[in-house]
Structures are given as C-alpha cells and as structure tokens.
C-alpha cells in the first residue's frame, strides 16, 4: 500500500511539491507517523536555488505557488515574518485528538469490579485515631451509594413513576376536613406499566432481562450464565463458594486435611502403584461409608483439597475422580518424551486432522464406538494421536487446567486390561493416548483394524479387533538395539488392511529407512524427504537423483517414523520446494533432492575464501 499523498497543480508544480514532500519526510524519518515535520520557506529556497543555480526570488515564488496549490498536504504557518510549512509522514499534519475517556482517576474511584461493601468501614476506617486530627476523606459517590450513605442517583425517567391523581375537590375541602368530617376521598392511583430497569448486564456484556423466567433464561443463555457465574465465584476475593469440577460448596463448610492425612493418601497411592478413585481413598484410608450423611461433603472436601496440593494431580474424568501423585511409575515407558510427542502430534492442532472424513463425530458420540487402522508408529510405541474422532469418543477434561486423564482399556477377547494415559492437547501441541504398546505387540500388527468402545464406567473403554485364521508374513520391525529397521517373520491372527500392512513384498525398501531421533521426527518436511528418498523409485541419475512415489505409499511409510494424516502429507508435498506432482498420474509425486555440496567442493570454497581474504 502506498502512503504517498496526491499532488495538484501543473506538472512542474506537482513535481516540485512532491520533491519537497520527500525531502521533508526524509527529514522526519524517525518521527512518529503522525508527528508534525516543519520546514521554513527560507531553507527550501536556499536549497533549491543552490541546486538549480537560479534566482532565489524566482525560486521562492515557484515554491510558494506550488505549495499553496497543495495546501491540503502542506499546512502554511507564519511566525515572525517567516513562512513555515508543516506535514507529517502520512501526508497532511493533523493534530492527534486527546482521549480523556479512560483516566486513571476515574478507574481508581469507580472500578469495574469493586469489592462488595457491606459496611462503610471496609472502605474507610471508622475507628478514631489516637490523635484526633480533622482530615477530609474523599469517598466517591459510588462507594457512598454502595454503603447506603448517599441516595442512589435516580436518572430522569419520563414514565417510570406511577401517576398519583389528586381529585380537584380534595384540595378545595382540605382545610375544612376536620371540622365538617366529610369522608376523605382516597387518592386514586392510576396503575401505569412500570418501567423499572430489570436488565442485568453480565461481565461479558450480555444483557439478560430478569422479568423472564429462570427456565427461559437458562434455555437461551444457559452455558454463558453458568460460565460467567463460575468465573465470578472463582474471582470472588472472599472465596465464599468453591468449586471442584461441576460441584459447588461453601468454603467455610469444606473439611480440612492435615499433613498426616495427605501423607497417608500419598503413601497409599504409591503402594498401590496406580491412580485411585476418590471413593476408594475415602473407603480405604478414612473408612467413610457412602450411607453416612456427611459422605458427599467429605468427598468434595477431599477432591477440593487434593487439587490444591502440588504433590497430587487430578487425572480423572467426570464421574470417575482419579488421583495420582509424584513417584508413581510412568505410563507407556520412556521411549518418547511428552514434549517431543506433543510437538509430533502438533499437526492435529494445525487443522490437518482428517479423522472425521469417513465418520461423523455425532455418530461416534451416540454409538460410543470408533474404528481405527493402526499405523506402524502407533503400533511400535503404543500411542494413538488424539484426533477429533478420538476426542468425540473419549471424555473431556473435568478441570480447566487438567493436562492428563487415566483411562483403562480392557480387552474382552483376552481378559486383560491396560492403564492408558490420555494427554490432552495444549496450545499448539497435540494430544495422544499412550500405554498400549504391550497389547499391540502381543496381539496386533500394523494395519490391523481396532475398535474402541465406551463402557458404563466413564474411564473404562474396551479395545477389540476382528480375529482371523493364522497368517505369517515378513513384516517390518524395529530392532531397537541396532536402531535399524528390518523384516522378520511375524505370525498374526487379526484382520488387517493389506494396503497398510508393511510386508517385505511391497515395502522392501523400508529396511533402509533410518530410525531418526525423536527430536528430528517432529519436523514433518525433513522426515518426508528422507522417507521419499527411501521408499521412492529412483528415476534420476547418480549426479541428478530423482525419486517417484505414490502418495498412498508415502502415507504408509511416513507413518513408520511419525504419525501424520493424509491432509498433512498433502500439505507437506504441496508446500515442499523439491516435490513436484506427476501431471499424468493423480496422486503420484516426484522428489528432486537439492544438490549437495561434497566435502572436497566445500573445502575448495573455503580455501578460495581464505585466499580472497589474504589478497
């Protein structure tokens, strides 16, 4: 966008005005864009007369005429007989308006969210000082109204008050009422529809009319009202009502837990070796019975207090409040660090999550089941990326800052179960499930179709697969000791998608794939280049290598080193500098690696640079 103003006058005048504008703008290059830049006519004449070697008087007239023609840009001022022109970097100089609508003194005396005032002594001390000194204390109208000291300012209202009609004869007989004992005619109150303000403004600016019924209001604004009310409770400086999840209770009635209680809970969790439900902790440590009247308040207190202790972490979901503590064994081993996995799964948060392309989130929620094809990475590390499809099946976090939830996946086919950690997405880092490595390795192969389903317990799920007759193939495996991929005979009994099965026949080249370190695998483009070089068919020459591969094969191969969706792969191919689509075959791509500089050439270049320096 150009910020140059337009100039008027004939061609010479326009050119001159533009030149002067450029000079003055250069003079104020470091000024604020709307700050005034001033220059005298005398200085301009000296400069142009010297430049053009012309008569100063004539130059002065030319400049003055040109700038008068462009008075919309050049503001002319006269001081002590000298003519001064003013512009700004944006063009004409316009003084900045002074905004006094948000003054600190207003905010100080009339804050947006003031503390509740039950008594004026909260604001100003009412106790008498030791030495009585008369000092004026300013109390704003606002606080005086809050404390009931000053009457509330009533804004002029046209029809707000009921009209009291006084009969005319009442005034006439008023003086003789007592003597004549004439029955007094009562003032007739004519009812007028009240115009009293019933609109309450919520902190987010939404206005609700309290004339409407509670059902109506909750029906229309339910989630907003609950969210605003929750925020208000959390912001209450006196913390009169506290929350845990969706439960609320008065803080004063919440039982306290001593250090000894907390130590006993922690020891019990460590002894058990896995997170425990709040009900289990209460039953086993505090011997409380659910039939006791104070059971639910005690349960609330336990959850609320543990949530405020840094040694404990809430890892439950709505309906199953599980607690973990420091020192419990990690779920899913230590092969992948959480920080690395979060970055690897980050593509899901960058809108490359196509898990709902074939299935509907609503149907997953209703049916409570989800089918999924296992990729090599998922199988190898027992990890499932937290896609939107998985999000529709699994429970949402109960607490706003909750990072993880512990779930149990049961296998009804084998009567086994696995404790699985669900890491929720945070910011630009994706979420994932981990802890299924053992089950996957024992029962499944990459390419197997698994079905996850809800149970009646909110934190327990089932994991099933379709069984089939014994099959044996040479499949890709990772030899972790040598850190190399290889093919080995594997016998399996599950139904697989043949396109996703990494057998030697189809994906033989994958044995040359390098098992890149995890911190390199988060760079999708780098991993794809390496995968393309490995799995692609060489179609170039030794000096100018080029590879050719189908996107379907690249998808399977890329998912050996890192999870990736088809849309993410497509994005990498389209954005990659060295990838070209095959115009004749849809879904096929070429990869031309950038020319590498050999070590000899590199050394030669360095030597040449040194020689140049010496010269």
């Amino acid at each position, binding site marked *: 966008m150009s910020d140059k103003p337009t100039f008027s006058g004939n061609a010479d005048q326009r050119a001159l005005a533009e030149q002067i504008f450029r000079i003055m703008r250069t003079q104020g290059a470091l000024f604020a864009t709307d700050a005034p830049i001033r220059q005298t006519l005398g200085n301009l004449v000296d400069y142009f007369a010297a430049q053009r070697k012309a008569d100063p008087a004539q130059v002065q007239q030319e400049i003055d005429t040109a700038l008068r023609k462009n008075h919309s840009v050049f503001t002319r001022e006269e001081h002590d007989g000298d003519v001064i022109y003013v512009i700004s970097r944006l063009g004409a100089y316009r003084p900045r308006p002074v905004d006094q609508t948000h003054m600190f003194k207003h905010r100080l005396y009339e804050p947006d969210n003031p503390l509740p005032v039950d008594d004026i002594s909260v604001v100003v001390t009412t106790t008498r000082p030791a030495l009585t000194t008369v000092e004026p204390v300013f109390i704003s109208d606002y606080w005086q109204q809050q404390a009931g000291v000053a009457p509330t300012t009533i804004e002029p209202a046209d029809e707000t008050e*009921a009209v009291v009609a006084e009969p005319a004869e009442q005034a006439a007989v008023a003086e003789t009422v007592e003597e004549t004992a004439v029955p007094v005619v009562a003032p007739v109150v004519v009812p007028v529809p009240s115009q009293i303000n019933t609109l309450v403004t919520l902190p987010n600016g939404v206005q609700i009319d*309290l004339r409407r019924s509670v059902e109506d209001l909750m029906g229309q604004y339910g989630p907003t009202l609950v969210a605003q009310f929750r925020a208000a409770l959390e912001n209450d400086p006196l913390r009169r009502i506290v929350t845990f999840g969706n439960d609320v209770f008065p803080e004063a009635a919440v039982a306290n837990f001593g250090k000894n209680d907390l130590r006993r809970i922690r020891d019990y969790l460590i002894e058990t070796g896995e997170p425990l439900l709040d009900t289990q902790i209460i039953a086993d440590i505090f011997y409380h019975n659910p039939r006791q009247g104070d059971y639910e308040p005690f349960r609330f207190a336990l959850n609320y207090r543990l949530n405020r202790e840094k040694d404990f972490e809430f890892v439950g979901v709505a309906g199953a409040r599980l607690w973990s503590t420091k020192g419990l064994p990690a779920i899913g081993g230590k092969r992948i660090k959480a920080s690395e996995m979060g970055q690897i799964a980050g593509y899901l948060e960058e809108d490359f999550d196509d898990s709902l392309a074939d299935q509907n989130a609503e149907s997953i929620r209703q049916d409570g089941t989800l089918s999924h094809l296992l990729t090599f990475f998922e199988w190898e590390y027992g990890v499932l990326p937290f896609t939107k499809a998985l999000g529709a099946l699994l429970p949402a976090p109960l607490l706003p800052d909750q990072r993880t939830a512990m779930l149990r996946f049961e296998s009804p086919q084998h009567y086994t179960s696995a404790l699985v950690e669900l890491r929720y997405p945070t910011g630009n880092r994706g979420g994932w499930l981990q802890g299924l490595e053992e089950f996957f390795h024992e029962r499944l192969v990459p390419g197997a179709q698994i079905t996850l389903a809800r149970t009646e317990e909110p934190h327990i799920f089932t994991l099933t697969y379709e069984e089939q007759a014994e099959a044996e193939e040479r499949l890709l495996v990772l030899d972790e000791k040598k850190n190399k991929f290889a093919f080995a005979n594997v016998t399996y009994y599950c139904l697989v998608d043949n396109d996703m099965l990494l057998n030697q026949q189809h994906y033989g080249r994958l044995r040359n794939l390098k098992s890149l370190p995890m911190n390199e695998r988060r760079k999708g483009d780098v991993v794809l280049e390496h995968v393309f070089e490995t799995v692609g068919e060489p179609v170039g020459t030794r000096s100018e290598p080029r590879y050719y591969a189908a996107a379907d094969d690249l998808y399977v191969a890329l998912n050996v080193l890192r999870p990736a969706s088809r849309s993410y792969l497509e994005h990498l191919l389209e954005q990659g500098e060295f990838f070209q689509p095959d115009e004749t075959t849809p879904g096929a791509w070429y990869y031309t690696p950038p020319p590498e500089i050999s070590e000899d050439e590199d050394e030669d270049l360095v030597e040449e640079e040194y020689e140049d320096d010496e010269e």
Partner: protein
Amino acid sequence: MDAKNVIFGETALEKLVQLLRAGGQPRDIVWLTEKYLEILRELVLAEEQRS
C-alpha cells in the same frame, strides 16, 4: 433493587451461601446458577412491585 445495581456473581451471594449451607450437600453448578437467578429475580421484581 434496581437491576443496574446488580453485579452478577456478587450481589446477593451471601444468600446463596446460606442456601448451600442449609442443604449441607455439594450441588451442581447449573442448579446453583438457577437458584442465583431466582434470588436476583426476587430482588429486582420486588423493587418493581414496590414502585
């Protein structure tokens, strides 16, 4: 009370605390929000009736 003096989540919170304490059991926040709206309605509509 005039509705313009109502601060949502602050005005009449003490009444809500008393209500919760009287019940003696933790309650759902949706239930509490409804009760709070009822209390605010009573306050504002009582003013309307007085005027």
